[in-house]
């Protein structure tokens, strides 16, 4: 009887090799793919397509200040043919207004209600400064001069409006809108399929911890698939050598790209944590099962 008990214990020894169940492996692969797609979808939603990500990068990279300096420099350049000195542009617009307008225009685009920057105050201040300069220089402002000044001020307004608007933002907004449209459906479908896959996998195994193992393999594979490619791109950094002008726009784009890629790595980390929990659960279930099985075996053989 003791020999029989020993034989039974040996059968249940964890070193005994079992062939992997092919169907369970296939189900595990399918679940891994579903979880990876869900990971990428969620990562994009809370990363690159988050509404605040660009305004945060604007603050982090000093984008507003650089835009302000560029608009001012361009305005002074535009004023040279008309012999308008640099001091005429003092106090026409300031950094605070530029920063406010950049964010306001961006937010209006994100909300699909594009509102142009208010340039009326710029127009008024610039005209006042030019008239003051003309008075100081004893320049008679006739009809022709006033028309030329009006044309020039309109040019500065256009320059300001175009400087405030972020390059290619309309493309980003249309991608984002398209993504937002299908995100909910995608997540719901993937969630349903994933739950179905998990249920089928668990039902295939009498000993649930075996089924849980295949789910853990899927979760770990999803972590690798979600995290490896973004980590590779982040470390390799090919996107940092893109020849994008102007420099302040390049800095902002690279910052957005860095943070978006980091989000995917955090999603991969989440899958690793879930896998760790599943592994712990597997161990507990296995121990419970083994203890229960030995008890039964022992009582039968007595």
């Amino acid at each position, binding site marked *: 009887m003791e020999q029989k008990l020993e034989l039974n214990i040996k059968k249940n020894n964890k070193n005994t090799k079992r062939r*992997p169940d092919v169907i369970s*492996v296939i189900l*595990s*692969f399918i679940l*891994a*793919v579903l979880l*990876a797609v869900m990971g990428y979808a969620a990562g994009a939603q809370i990363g690159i397509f988050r509404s605040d990500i660009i305004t945060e990068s604007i603050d982090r990279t000093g984008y507003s200040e650089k835009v302000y300096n560029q608009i001012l420099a361009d305005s002074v*350049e535009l004023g*040279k*043919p*008309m*012999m*308008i000195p640099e001091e005429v542009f003092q106090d026409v617009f300031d950094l605070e207004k530029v920063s406010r307008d950049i964010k306001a225009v961006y937010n209006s685009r994100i909300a699909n209600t594009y509102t142009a920057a208010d340039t009326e105050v710029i127009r008024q201040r610039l005209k006042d400064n*030019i008239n003051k300069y*003309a008075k100081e*220089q004893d*320049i008679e*402002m006739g009809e*022709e*001069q006033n*028309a*030329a*000044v009006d044309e020039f001020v309109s040019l500065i307004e256009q320059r300001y409006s175009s400087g405030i608007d972020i390059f290619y933002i309309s493309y980003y907004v249309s991608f984002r809108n398209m993504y937002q449209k299908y995100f909910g459906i995608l997540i719901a479908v993937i969630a349903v399929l994933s739950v179905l896959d998990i249920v089928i996998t668990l039902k295939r195994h009498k000993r649930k911890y075996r089924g849980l*193992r295949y789910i*853990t*393999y*899927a979760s*770990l*594979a999803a*972590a*690798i*698939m979600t995290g*490896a490619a973004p980590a590779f791109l982040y470390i390799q950094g*090919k*996107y940092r*050598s*893109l*020849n*994008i002008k102007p420099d302040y726009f390049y800095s902002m784009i690279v910052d957005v790209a860095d943070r978006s890629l980091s989000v995917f790595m955090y999603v991969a980390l989440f899958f690793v944590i879930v896998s760790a929990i599943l*592994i712990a659960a597997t161990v507990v279930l296995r121990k419970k099962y083994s203890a229960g099985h030995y008890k039964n075996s022992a009582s039968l053989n007595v």
Partner: protein
Amino acid sequence: MAYVYMPLLLSLIGFLLVFLCLSPYIKAAYSVMSIISENTAQTSVDETEVPDFKLENTSGETESIPYSPDMYPQLGELYAQIHCDRLGIHENVYFGDSSTELNKGVGQYAGSGIFGFGRTIILGGHHATSFAPLEYVEVGDVFTVNTSYATYTYEVYDMVVANEDDGWAFGFDSDEEIITMYTCYPFTPLASYSQRLYVYARKTSGPYLEH
């Protein structure tokens, strides 16, 4: 060990499938990124290094020299300097007359001939900066142009104020080599500047480029 090799195997199969399905798009994306990330070739000469245009062996006494394609400048290139001691003009001449060149100095219209070709050469400059002294130009003023291959002198013989749209004012119909220097007119601030001052100077010395 199964927790190591099984996820690796599953993810490898996943990556392989993605690569097989999306490889044309991945390759296209990488090609585009490579093109965008290449350093674009500089089309303009580095301005911190101004070529030495003062050549002792080409002082203008030679009647003609053979033309070489190296003499023809690239768009945006700094290829000459123009001087007028009386007016105090000492400016770099760039090939091309876009705002980029005009902001740096004098720009030459790329459709006109280069110095020594025997054709009209159109030079533009801002009336507030490089060509501001043209306000005081007179008939008889001498302009010297130094290039890497020769030195030329031109003497002013005429000037006219015309509208910016008046094509005749550029002097393309001249039989001899002249430079037409033009700038916005009048020289007062806050004007409409629909007119241009055209200053014409004929070549008085410098070799002809045989071509």
